[in-house]
């Protein structure tokens, strides 16, 4: 076993470091963006078997660390399943970037890098029999914003730790 220097080799397209904190919980969602510095994670996933398990794990860890109740973590399992199953059909390329930021009251989950109308298409796809639209049932607000990649769109889910669905 040896440790080798690799010089400037750079095998993957990098995420831009300066954009790490480019997405923050807006005042309209949290009112107190106390965790803008810490409880923020961005994950870019390629279509494939890893997407679902990793997305759920990252989102649930961020929310658990923010002391979200267990029933809301269960809700987010459905949300992550829906997003990982359908987001790639609306993506600019073979990857989708998600960001999650949370404090103890609010969270914001973004699906970036979607094509134009991809955000609305993703919402339309997230329908379960009997339950209805998973994203709209679980998130307090679901809306689209202009994307920063491929002139597309991004989907924003604003969530509260204490949902009206779980009084």
């Amino acid at each position, binding site marked *: 076993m040896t440790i080798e220097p690799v010089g*400037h080799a750079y095998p*993957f397209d990098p995420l831009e470091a300066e954009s790490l*904190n480019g997405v923050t919980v807006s005042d309209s969602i949290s009112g107190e963006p106390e965790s803008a510095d810490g409880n923020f994670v961005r*994950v870019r996933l390629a279509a494939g078997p890893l997407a*679902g398990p990793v997305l759920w794990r990252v989102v*649930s860890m961020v929310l658990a660390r923010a002391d979200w109740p267990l029933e809301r973590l269960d809700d987010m399992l459905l949300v992550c399943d829906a997003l990982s199953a359908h987001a790639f059909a609306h993506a600019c390329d073979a990857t989708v970037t998600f960001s999650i930021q949370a404090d103890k009251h609010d969270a914001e989950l973004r699906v970036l890098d979607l094509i134009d109308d991809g955000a609305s298409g993703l919402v339309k796809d997230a329908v*379960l029999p009997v339950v209805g639209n998973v994203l709209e049932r679980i998130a307090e607000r679901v809306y689209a914003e202009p994307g920063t990649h491929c002139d597309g769109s991004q989907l924003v889910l604003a969530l509260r730790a204490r949902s009206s669905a779980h009084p």
Partner: protein
Amino acid sequence: MTPDMELALTARAENIAVVRYALGGLGEAFAVSESKLSDIRLAVTEACANVVVHAYPDGHYGPMEVIANKDEDTLTVLVRDWGRGIGPRPDSPGLGLGLSLIAALADSVQLAHGDIEHTEVRMTFSLADSQTSIPTPPGTPSRAQASGHEA
């Protein structure tokens, strides 16, 4: 090349747990054996801990990235930061075993300091003979199928 997963986080100690938990998805997605997954998690944890402890000045929290890609029977994991690079640190609070431990657990380790001021530790792990073959009973739905979201 597009990796399977890129995680971008702040280099804080609590975020190492996020990385460890995310890596657990490898076991779920690729049926990596628990012992191999433990080695991977420990090596990546050490690399992330190095970033948290050494990359940025005390009181400053810079970015940390963890990138993973599976190709055939090989998993490559990069841990990257934009800090002050790898070098001797006489006041290091650790035992200085991090890189040695990584080297012992990974099949290869490469260190790089790139031209965009990043430092990276690249680890490869052979997954040959470490992937479990747990038979799935016929008709057993995946989690996505169970929730009605199979693409």
